[in-house]
């Protein structure tokens, strides 16, 4: 290990990101070189930690410096197989993507900003996985979110990009809040943030608290890793430049959730198995997401939508595997992480290939493409590699990882779970095949005939080549990785010839054949079925299972409604209600005005009915009726003239005093309720 490698690996990219704007003053070349050198340095430092972990020669896995000394919180790094594995993946992947960006982003505006955020993104993600305590982890967790927000809306002049950025930020923030709550709960019961102390003391946490913590952390992971039902941000994030998408999917951001869940198994130890319903929840969320994500990918016309939904689905596979940990073996844990690695490679490659296509064609709509095979042969080859790797054709990497996942799911004994995963696998092949047929194989479209087609720039192909080799060869290194992770899992290469492989291939065929018939053969029968019988399904898929509609209509509108109602109350109700209250009291004290009395007794039934209705509907119109009703009861000319106040933007003095008196009354009631029990 190089000296201080575990610190420098994240400090270097994080701090040097600050110098990007300065270096950019020297010129474009200097800026590019700087970014490449920094990411290379991070990779070297990350890799230097590998031998120590592999041979288990580390004497001191932790090192800390005081951070918030008053609360006894230290900043530190935690070296174990998990963190080093992730650090290497992120650093290496970041390096590849930076090289790719040299070609892909060339000539864009605001490149200093781009490289600044890219380096910060890489640095804070490595910082996240190397942290030795929850607080530090959370800070980096948020920084990762901020960086992705800024990078997704990189083309800030396009309103869609900015909207997508805000959506990413808000939806992942739900998860952040869950995570923060979990950390606070854990701190409240343990009095420490440090991983080391947590491992030592975790037995002392009562099971209900532990359950709450585990589920809240799962919530954090679900939002960050785009699992159901918080998956919709990932598709919106496709507004980002393709290189950013590749980094976001391959190594950073979405992988943070997987890391968190994997880390929890280490922190909780055997206790993780005793939390009621937790493991099945993880597995089922994963499995359902895997299936739903895959079906969404079948339908999308957007070429970047395919890998987006694919990532959602593949992370579902990983979660399912992580949830399949059993008391006797950690095979599921390893399977999830191993699949994470292979996913990083093939998904990264997929994005790089697509990036080339989008770069050349200038559109993302697959319906406009077709027949690119001849024009872009290398990209076609890469896409075929992606297809094999993604679906898991032996001997590509994900064949082994998916095999491991399925066998570990078998060991949980939940057949339904295994079937869901098989179905997801089948659909995976279907959507990948569909995208290849639409893009490369069918007739050249009219749109393409007008454009001059050419292969992507050399420097972009270089990065893709490295990833393609890794995709193909990675599976053979499985045993080495298992040894590195100190897990006793044996990946037999002979498994290729077993019966499970046959089942796997049959499943793939089941998914691929209808697609082949539909898109390549144009089978009339299938087409007609699709049009008629499956029409409702089509609608559902078109709307992405209505998740976005739900969020838009119910949550956003709902909050808007509530707040608008409140504003009305502020302008009218807050003013009038206490006003009415004060007047009422004075009137009654003055000796009961007949008028008011009449009004109350005559109008009371109607008022009650209206009140109930208005509460039931809760709409603004009824709120108005409600307020007007109150007004009517007061039946006071001055009050009626005060309805002109509706338009003033600040209340009158009397309203303030009345509100304060109301508060005084609440105070009195609360005191009586709480102090004189």
């Amino acid at each position: 290990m190089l000296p201080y490698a575990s610190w420098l690996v994240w400090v270097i990219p994080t701090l040097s990101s600050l110098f990007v704007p300065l270096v950019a003053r020297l010129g474009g070349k200097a800026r590019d070189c700087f970014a490449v050198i920094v990411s290379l340095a991070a990779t070297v430092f990350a890799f230097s930690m590998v031998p120590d972990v592999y041979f288990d020669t580390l004497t001191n896995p932790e090192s800390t410096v005081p951070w918030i000394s008053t609360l006894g919180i230290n900043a530190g790094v935690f070296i174990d197989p998990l963190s080093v594995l992730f650090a290497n993946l992120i650093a290496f992947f970041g390096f590849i993507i930076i090289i790719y960006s040299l070609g892909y982003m060339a000539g864009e505006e605001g490149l200093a900003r781009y490289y600044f955020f890219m380096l910060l993104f890489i640095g804070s993600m490595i910082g996240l996985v190397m942290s030795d305590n929850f607080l530090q982890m959370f800070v980096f967790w948020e920084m990762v979110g901020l960086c992705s927000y800024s990078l997704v809306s990189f083309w800030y002049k396009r309103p869609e990009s900015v909207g997508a950025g805000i959506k990413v930020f808000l939806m992942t923030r739900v998860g952040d809040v869950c995570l923060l709550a979990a950390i606070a709960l854990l701190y409240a019961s343990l009095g420490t943030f440090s991983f080391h102390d947590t491992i030592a003391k975790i037995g002392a946490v009562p099971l209900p608290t532990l359950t709450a913590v585990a589920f809240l952390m799962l919530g954090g992971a679900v939002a960050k890793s785009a699992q159901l039902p918080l998956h919709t941000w990932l598709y919106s994030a496709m507004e980002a430049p393709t290189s950013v998408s590749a980094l976001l999917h391959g190594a950073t951001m979405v992988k943070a959730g997987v890391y968190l869940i994997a880390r929890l198994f280490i922190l909780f130890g055997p206790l993780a198995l005793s939390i009621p319903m937790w493991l099945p929840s993880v597995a089922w969320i994963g499995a359902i997401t895997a299936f739903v994500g895959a079906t969404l990918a079948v339908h999308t016309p957007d070429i970047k939508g395919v890998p987006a939904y694919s990532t959602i689905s593949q992370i579902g596979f990983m979660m399912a595997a992580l949830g399949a940990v059993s008391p006797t073996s950690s095979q599921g844990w390893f399977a999830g992480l191993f699949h994470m690695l292979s996913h990083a490679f093939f998904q990264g490659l997929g994005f790089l290939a697509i990036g080339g296509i989008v770069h050349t064609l200038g559109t993302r709509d697959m319906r406009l493409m077709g027949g690119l095979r001849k024009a872009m042969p290398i990209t076609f080859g890469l896409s075929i590699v992606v297809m094999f790797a993604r679906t898991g054709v032996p001997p590509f990497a994900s064949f082994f990882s998916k095999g491991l996942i399925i066998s570990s799911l078998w060991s949980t004994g939940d057949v339904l779970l295994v079937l869901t995963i098989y179905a997801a696998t089948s659909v995976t092949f279907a959507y990948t095949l569909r995208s290849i047929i639409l893009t490369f194989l069918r007739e050249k479209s009219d749109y393409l005939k007008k454009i001059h087609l050419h292969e992507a720039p050399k420097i972009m192909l270089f990065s893709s080549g490295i990833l393609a080799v890794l995709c193909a060869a990675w599976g053979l290194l499985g045993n080495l990785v298992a040894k590195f992770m100190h897990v006793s899992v044996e990946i037999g290469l002979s498994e290729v010839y077993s019966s499970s492989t046959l089942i796997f291939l049959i499943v793939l065929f089941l998914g691929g054949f209808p697609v082949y018939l539909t898109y390549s053969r144009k089978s009339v029968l299938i087409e007609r079925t699709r049009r008629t019988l499956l029409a409702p399904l089509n609608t559902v898929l078109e709307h992405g299972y209505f998740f976005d509609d739900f969020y838009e209509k119910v949550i956003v509108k709902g909050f808007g409604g509530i707040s608008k109602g409140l504003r009305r109350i502020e302008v009218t109700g807050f003013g009038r209600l206490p006003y009415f209250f004060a007047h009422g009291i004075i009137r009654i004290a003055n000796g009961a005005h007949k008028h008011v009395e009449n009004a109350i007794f005559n109008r009371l039934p109607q008022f009650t009915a209206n009140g109930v209705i208005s509460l039931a509907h809760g709409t603004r119109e009824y709120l108005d009726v409600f307020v007007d009703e109150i007004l009517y009861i007061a039946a006071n000319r001055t009050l009626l003239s005060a309805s002109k106040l509706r338009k003033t933007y600040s209340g009158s003095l009397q309203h303030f005093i009345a509100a304060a008196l109301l508060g005084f009354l609440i105070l009195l009631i609360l005191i009586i309720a709480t102090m004189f029990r």
Partner: protein
Amino acid sequence: MDYVILSMTLLAIGIYGLLTKRHLLKVLISVELIATAASMNFVLLASSLNKALGEAFLILAFSTDTCVTGIILALLVIASKKYGTCDIRKLAKLEQHETIEGEGKSDSKIKEDIV
């Protein structure tokens, strides 16, 4: 006990006045009534304790009250001189038209100095 009832009554009258009166001067009188009620209570309890601290407090509290009253009086003068009304509701209505004429104008003038 009588004095407590008296001070409570004063307080109630003051709050009633604040809630109903629209003229600034009447608002001011109501405010004074509230302050007097509180002070009266203080004197009452201080005299029953036979310690001088209560009276000392009262003198100081009175002085702050007087200051605030002075400020409100000043506001009253400004309101009647500048806007020709002492009615708080009318003042509230003036507010709506003012953003364009009032602050906006003086701000655009200052803008030149600042930049």
